């Protein structure tokens, strides 16, 4: 692949992920979720009890967004190579809805995490993320924070 077409692929894939963050995660557009995730999408980081497919991803993500209705995702850094895009993000939100069996706490949450997405023909086919779950659970009060 020429350098120019490799760069085009990178930029196109990054734009897909930018749209996902802005339209799906920040503007909570379900239409865009279905548009940008391929029918054979696999969530390699699906939580326990949640199906790893596109339907499960939708259920989990929108359940999450509804539990933190004022939430906002900011892209801190993004790199891409081939069919993969790595995004470092900061999430902020207030826990005012039930989430993963945890009743609303009213706690303000700030979390930094990393997504790796694989993109094919303008659609997301795979997602993996790494979140500091300990910090998340401590901020929610599910696990005591160190004294």
């Amino acid at each position, binding site marked *: 692949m020429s*350098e120019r077409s490799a760069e085009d692929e*990178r930029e196109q894939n990054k734009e897909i992920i930018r749209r996902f963050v802005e339209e799906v995660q920040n503007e909570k557009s379900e239409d865009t979720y279905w548009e940008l995730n391929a029918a054979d999408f696999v969530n390699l980081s699906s*939580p*326990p*009890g949640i199906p790893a497919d596109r339907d499960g991803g939708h259920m989990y993500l929108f359940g999450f967004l509804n539990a933190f209705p004022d939430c906002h995702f900011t892209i801190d*850094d993004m*790199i*891409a*190579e*081939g069919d*993969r*895009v*790595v995004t*470092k993000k900061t999430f902020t939100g207030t826990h005012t809805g039930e989430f*993963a*069996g*945890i*009743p609303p706490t009213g706690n303000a949450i700030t979390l*930094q*995490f*990393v997504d*790796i997405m694989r993109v094919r023909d303008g659609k997301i086919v795979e997602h*993996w993320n*790494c*979140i*500091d*779950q*300990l*910090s998340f*659970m401590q901020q929610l009060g*599910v*696990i005591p924070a160190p004294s």
Partner: protein
Amino acid sequence: MLRRRRPGRKRKTAFALTGISAAVVSALGFRRRRAKTGAAPDNKAIIRQLFEGTWAGDPDVTDRYVAPTYIGYEPSQESPIEGIDGFKAFIQRFRDSFSNTHVTIEEQIAEDDTVATRWTGRGTHTGEISGIAPTGKDVTITGVSISRIENGKLVEDHTTWDTLGLLVQLGAIPAIRTPEQQQEHFHEHEHEHEHEHEHQAY
């Protein structure tokens, strides 16, 4: 940079100019390609050698690949890790608590001066960590590091890894629950939480 062929030139001159243009374009293009695509594979190799080497106990690899100005952000550390000595001390603290440490590079994505590395770390819990006495358990943790390289050395990185997963494997925290299990657990312990809040009010 393309130099357009000027219309109306004599064929011989035009041919010569085109030949020069082509050579210039080719030379510039070749240099651009080498700077971009030459850097990315080297950066991946630097991070691979650094990660694999340090966790295997190689004493020299940190000096070779970490800049004196290095700063690292890592979820288990309250303040950033600074410099070559800071990097070595951070690795040593974990190697004091875990024996047979080694890291597997699962995949790397690189663009310009930045490499993202998804990795799996393994070791055996043979020393105290976070107040947890050695359990002898084999642990496996996954994480990702986003590293910036300048002049062949690591200058900055941001690492995220499954800290909760480690504590679960060491038995310090119960396993992650499904939403239904979580709800059940919360209701079972609801009264405990209420009493905690009462005490705190005093």
